[in-house]
């Protein structure tokens, strides 16, 4: 059996979590021979481009904390393996010249009132502070409206707003709106509006 690109991807399946190893009797059955084990572990997954809403398919290979290759997914019906300048540059969202893109944020950062710079913080501290702000702002008598000036029950907070995000996954958008509405937020918007 000739190992086509499609066949390769079918074999690798959906759950390569970082490496693809040839081993086991299953491979012999599919390939017709026992393959030589690879020395390198590579991960190869399929993804959808994060830029415009074409939904083009790409294949990404990562190794050792870096992206080592990106190419258009030839099996994808929409782009058939092609890429525009942005899709072709997908690797650099993570890896530039073999290292992490130095402009990527890697730690929670905090800017204090009036400060002229950032301080690095832990996730625990940051989440604690954010939750405190959300509660204090939501609950403040100026912001929380149990009833409106027409006497209706409205149960909303007007002191908090949320923007974003059209590049968040569906599951993230869903949890976001679930959180916002159940906390009583009404100023809820994102890129779709503008």
């Amino acid at each position, binding site marked *: 059996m000739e190992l086509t690109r499609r066949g390769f991807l079918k074999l690798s399946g959906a759950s390569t979590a970082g490496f693809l190893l040839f081993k086991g009797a299953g491979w012999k059955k599919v390939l017709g021979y026992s393959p030589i084990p690879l020395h390198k572990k590579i991960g190869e997954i399929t993804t959808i481009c994060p830029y*415009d809403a074409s939904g083009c398919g790409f294949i990404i290979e990562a190794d050792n904390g870096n992206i080592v290759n990106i190419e258009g997914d030839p099996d994808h019906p929409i782009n058939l393996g092609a890429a525009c300048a942005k899709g072709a540059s997908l690797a650099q969202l993570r890896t530039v010249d073999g290292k992490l893109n130095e402009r990527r944020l890697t730690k929670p950062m905090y800017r204090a009132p009036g400060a002229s710079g950032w301080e690095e913080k832990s996730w625990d501290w940051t989440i604690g502070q954010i939750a405190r702000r959300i509660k204090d702002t939501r609950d403040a008598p100026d912001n929380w409206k149990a009833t*409106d000036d027409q006497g209706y029950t409205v149960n909303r907070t007007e002191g*908090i707003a949320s923007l974003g995000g059209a590049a968040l996954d569906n599951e993230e958008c869903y949890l976001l709106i679930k959180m916002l509405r159940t906390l009583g937020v009404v100023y809820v918007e994102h890129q779709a509006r503008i």
Partner: protein
Amino acid sequence: MTNHWNDVANSDVMMAIGSNPAENHPACFGWVQKAKDRGAKLISVDPRFTRTSSKADIYAPMRSGTDIAFIGGMIKYVLDDMEANPDNYNMTYVREYTNAALLINSDFQGADELDGLFSGYKGVYNETDNAKRTYDKSAWQYQLNKSGIPQRDPDLKDNNCVFQILKRHFARYDADTVSNITGTPKDTYLEICKTYAASGTPGKAGTILYAMGTTQHTYGTQNIRAYAILQLLLGNIGIAGGGINAMRGESNVQGSTDMCILAHILPGYLAQVENKDVDLDTYVNRHRPTVATGQFNADPLSLDWWKNYKKYIVSLLKAWYGDAATSDNDFYFNYLPKTTKPYNDYSHIALFEAMYAGDIKGLMCWGQNPAVGGPNANMERKALEKLDWLVAVDLWETESAAFWKRPGVTPANIPTEVFMLPAACSYEKEGSVTNSGRWMQWRYKAIDPPEDAKNDLSIINKIMVKVRELYAAEGGPLSEAIAAVDWNYGDDPDPREVAKEVNGYDLTTGKLMASFGALKDDGTTSSGNWLYCNSVVDPDLEPDAPIPGNRASRRDPTPGPFDIGLHPKWAWCWPVNRRIIYNRASVDLDGVPWDKEQPVIWWQEGKWVGDVPDGGAAPMNQDGYNAFIMKPEGVANIFGRGRADGPLPEHYEPWESPVANIMSKQHNDPAFKIWASELDKKGTADDYPIVATTYRVVEHWQAGQMTRNLPWIVELQPEMFVEISEELANEKGITNGGKAIIETARGQIEAIALVTKRFQPFQLNGKKVHQVGMPWHWGYSGLSRGDSANVLTPHVGDANTMIPEFKAFLCNIKKA
């Protein structure tokens, strides 16, 4: 999109208007090219000769903001031609599938009679009091018969029928008037009318490819309405190669819109709750038209799909509040926040006006960068200074996260606390995104996020868990509602489980719902988004998917029935994997396709073959249901009774316009809200005589943080620029490559001048008017920095949606 990307290849004529797909949707352009290879024609309508124009068979220059005149003239052309040559058109489609035959209240008077306004306007011409910039729409409603359903004249001749109203309305849109408004040469314009009208013949298909050039206007909604009217007259909706194809701009803006992270809607396009919705049934009934509410009863020939409204809101409440939500407590309906102001008064522009006024204290920003992407950027940046706290979640330090240290401000004077959270990029996490064609596609994690960066799913979860802990410990207003939320995702939510919640469950069995057709209003089903029901099903129903049961993960590229590129087994699309929506309009009343070469569905031997049919009922002539199942009338709306600014599109000038409106006395759209903060400055044509617009380039993306931080991209497209015509450059002494300053009433920016033939001055009713354009991707942060075009744009938006009028405003330009 009513259709989808690959379907464009099935077109006979494609009109790219308010868009530049060669540049901004390159994948689409492959399918445009495929259509051209088959002999299809491409029309490009744009103020500027773009990359799309360079591949077009016909290019028409059109002044920014004059789409309604342009399309209105095409509608007139078609209506006139229908009278002369009815056999060239599908009059059955127009009569049976649209509301052309329905009768409107005989008191109705249109813009042709009332010089630019419609019946029921509460203000005077060019009214400035927002409270009076509104319509009483009672004269816009249907005449009803004894059963309370709209009256109909199948001959399309009654003076009050929509078809005749339409003819009277667009009679003023003759080619000379259109040419004087748009600046399009008349002969080119007529060539376009003729070429596009040819798609009205049964068996021919025309598609409209549009984007933000259409929507970002004070009458953007009416721009799209104009396309809808044209396409319905030509029988182009529901067919292969037809449709109204919105080419959306972000990888998951379709999904985020479907999940309804917007002020006016809840997941699945359910309405946001208003204060008057005192209980669930009041809310549901308000969204069901009846004679009692001044509307009409649903036509028995309409599937009237929104009659299922209650099933969807109850299933949503069950997904959010779980077992404790029961019919006894109205499924905790009253825990949901309710609005008092009109919805748009909570939307982006209004949000920033409220922030600027000091009313909003805290903002969460999830991968959005309003300091670059929002209109009147100086105002929005100043508004951020009024916040007590900002949470900015992104991959990068964006202009929004760094607003407090932007050029020209003193950080010590800005007390806002900022929490900047490092987020995972698209391939550092797993989940789904929905493209413009409604295809929900699953994607995987290639690599862990770098260092302490996290995916947004995890961040949202952490915040909500902590907030709930605080309320459990301390109490607070309506803390019982926060405790009641069904929120159990552990430490690290699994996107596959969240996708199942969105799909929904049969709560009596614990099994995944197979389709929204089975959702109930009695609390026995849950669904986070009824539109997505059918996307993740029982593994037995979809065993071969890479993630069994998860239809979004499917990778079978088979083209599918009739070889029209449906790809029905690649991923999944809503609703219920129907690839071309409104497809019941693609067949005649016997279920036979108008186009037998490119059918979408076909009634054969007692069943439908092809795409998932839009409602499985038999054809109309066999006791079936009418084509447009979401409409209570069952027919598509040429006449739109519910729009804020008129039931038919009417040409108005942009808020900032270089000329008088020659169509009527009503200069601007009569219903958009005029904002009046001290930073909402309006420019006059005397001070700012040049039309300006903004657009994008293929190398960069939106507010720029995702591309201006990538060295390869920056190398390709390094700097902010402004495109100006040779004639204007000569007039101003601006040289190609030299620096220019562009100024509006709101601010000024500097950019490299790109002097080009691609812009030509317009002749507007005898007056020469120049136009310039520029990309809006740049800001003061990142690897490549530059001035933001949105410093120039106005804080004024569409009458129906309040989307900002980024695309047509006034400026002046000079050499730097």
